[in-house]
């Protein structure tokens, strides 16, 4: 059986088999619309907090107003004491409490340090960061103004006073994703992961559902069987590439554009990098089919492993923090190298030579999984006493 025949048969099966079509095409459409929803607002804004103002002076009210004016937090309630406010935190009405103690204004006017306290819910890392960042920024601004006023009051020149309060300004410059948007961070990686999931399940189903064309003649010569195995695997991989080509293009270029994610890399480089990725995933799918052997097992196993794969990929959780054994396990999944490489190429504008190691690694994975698939195919063609028929 020639490679072309396998290609045509396999390509046809993608559209003929309903479960395959639904996972490779219909699911692609649904996930493209459904999956990004939680992240589309990009940033967490206006986290509600309560102010417990025990000072009740002009200055304390000004401070609360400034905190409310930051984009990050909103003063949702003004409460008489901390225990009352804590109950509101437990009820999830607010996520932080800003306490302005008594004598806040008096201490400030007397030139003493006048501390304020922030009690912030730390179970959500992102919210905690927002709240503490915003309150510190406001306290710094107000504090600097107080300090400058004091110095000027002592007869110091205004520019000198400004230099004395902030002699060495610290300027953090985020390269790439400058807004620190959550969608910009998570979606490019998640799209790669979704592509992998859908292709793995699709190929897994194709390999386990009936209807594969098997050669009628059982050849006995080893070289013939080997040649047939190789051309079968190659034909299948080509068929999957043909089906995936438009989907990959949409997921890696169309969707990021649609969701307004900045892209620095050229489309050609992205697609060039996607080729070994798609091949490696498709070949891994053939191996998966041979291991699981049952279409429902393919579906059920991959439904469950989605989330662990997400964490293995090294963007939700830094790879540096994983134990070495896990890091090696992660490298066996095409998504790990592909996410690093594709994000670098698309979002950071890296060239193919910048991501050489990821690129070559993916080709290596593709070759290894394809070789295993050929071995599996070869073993299936063992001359049987009863000829296999369609």
């Amino acid at each position, binding site marked *: 059986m020639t490679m072309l025949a396998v290609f045509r048969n396999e390509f046809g099966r993608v559209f003929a088999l309903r479960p395959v079509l639904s996972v490779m095409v219909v699911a692609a459409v649904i996930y493209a619309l459904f999956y990004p929803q939680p992240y589309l607002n990009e940033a967490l804004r206006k986290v509600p907090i309560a102010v417990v103002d025990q000072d009740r002076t002009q200055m304390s009210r000004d401070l609360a107003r400034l905190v409310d004016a930051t984009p990050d937090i909103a003063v949702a309630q003004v409460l008489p004491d901390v225990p009352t406010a804590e109950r509101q935190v437990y009820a999830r009405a607010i996520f932080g409490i800003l306490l302005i103690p008594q004598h806040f204004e008096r201490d400030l006017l007397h030139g003493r340090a006048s501390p304020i306290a922030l009690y912030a819910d730390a179970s959500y890392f992102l919210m905690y960061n927002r709240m503490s960042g915003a309150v510190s920024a406001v306290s710094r601004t107000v*504090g600097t103004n107080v300090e400058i006023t004091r110095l000027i009051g002592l007869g110091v020149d205004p520019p000198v006073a400004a230099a*004395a309060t902030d002699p060495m300004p610290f300027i953090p410059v985020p390269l790439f994703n400058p807004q620190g948007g959550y969608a910009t961070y998570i979606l490019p990686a998640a799209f790669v992961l979704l592509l992998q999931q859908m292709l793995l399940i699709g190929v897994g189903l194709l390999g386990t559902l009936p209807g594969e064309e098997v050669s009628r003649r059982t050849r006995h010569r080893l070289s013939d069987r080997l040649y047939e195995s190789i051309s079968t695997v190659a034909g299948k991989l080509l068929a999957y590439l043909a089906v995936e080509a438009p989907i990959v293009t949409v997921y890696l270029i169309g969707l990021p554009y649609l969701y307004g994610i900045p892209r620095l890399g050229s489309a050609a480089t992205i697609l060039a990098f996607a080729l070994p990725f798609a091949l490696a995933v498709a070949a891994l799918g053939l191996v998966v089919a041979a291991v699981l052997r049952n279409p429902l097992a393919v579906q059920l196993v991959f439904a469950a492993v989605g989330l662990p794969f997400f964490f293995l990929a090294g963007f939700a959780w830094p790879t540096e923090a994983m134990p070495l054994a896990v890091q090696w396990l992660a490298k066996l999944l095409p998504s790990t190298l592909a996410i690093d490489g594709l994000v670098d190429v698309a979002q950071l504008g890296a060239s193919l030579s910048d991501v050489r190691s990821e690129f070559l690694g993916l080709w290596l994975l593709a070759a290894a999984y394809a070789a295993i698939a050929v071995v599996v195919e070869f073993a299936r063609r063992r001359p049987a006493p009863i000829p296999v028929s369609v």
Partner: protein
Amino acid sequence: MQRREHQPPGFSLVFWRELAWLRRRPLLLALTAVLPIGLMLLLTAILSAGLATQLPIAVLDLDGSELSRAVIRAVDATPDDAAVLHVAELSEGRHLIVSRKIRGLLMLPRNLERDVFAGRRPEVVFFYNTQTFTVGNLVLRGANAAIPSVAAGIRISLRTDEGIPVEEAKAEITPIPVQTHALFNSTLNYVHFLLTALLPAVLQTVVVTTMAYAVGLDVETRHRFAVLRRLGGGLLPAMFGKMLPYTILFLSILGIADFVLFKYLELPLRGEPELLVLAGFLFVLSCQFIGALLAMLLRPVAVAVSIATVLTAPAFGFMGIGFPRLGMNEFAYGYGEILPGTWYLMARVDQTIRGAPIDLSWKPILVLTGFVVVLIGLTAARILSMRRAAEERTS
């Protein structure tokens, strides 16, 4: 097998039949028991080392003075950052960031020391990569803590030079210090939150999809559905007999996972364990009935499993594990609202990390109870309508 022949039809007959089934079908047992435990172990292994520390950064020191070296030492001394190499120019540093060799670049301008003491306010710049969110925030945290503290030292020395006592100078430079207290999770251990949160997300997918599969096998054809009904001596006992073995199985898995989390990984358990168990029970039941309902509404089984996957696999995003639900658009917030996992996660966080007072812990548990009641109602209605359809056909 002998048991079955001696038993009258009813709840327990179906129950034992299901258990025997589980024994004979390694696939089902592997999916319901081995897989979730294995995945939890994997997730625990991924997170076990804790948050990344000593992330590599590079330094572009154009000053080479006492002060610039002090800044580098201060940044290097933070737990977050490690200054691993010096670069000669900006483009080199940028290239290293793009190729992920380093996570940040600290640039100290020429004449830093001279300008600082001349009051010219030279800027210390830190370049980092926010495309890798967590890592970017971590390296920034180190620089953000170290550099202002060096600057504070300078500000104090500027004042002590003028003859102001150190204590007074210290008070003067920060007129409004902020004391930040972490409510709950006081060690700011993100791993605790993630492990607490990921278990329900994984289990939700596993329970809904495998129940869609297990129930689907019995209702896929009219004949099998009739067999199940006869064995159960009625539809409702048959249904509950079918579900209960899995309830026990999934609750045991939840129990084992939680035992490991609380006993060995020392996750805080500040609330009421009874409420945690109750919430877990309601959560497993709701997920089971969602799966069962899907199996009864959609045929063949493959389609039911597909839809179950589409509904639950992306759920962790909607449950607010990464990006908080507070920041989501209305659709995402609303979808999160109808996932049992969202409410179970709230109950879990309440009873583990937060230690919420009992009177404020009931909301998620009541919502879960509501889910169970509504879902059982819907399932019963669907079963009755299926029976009616079957009877009309036979008559």
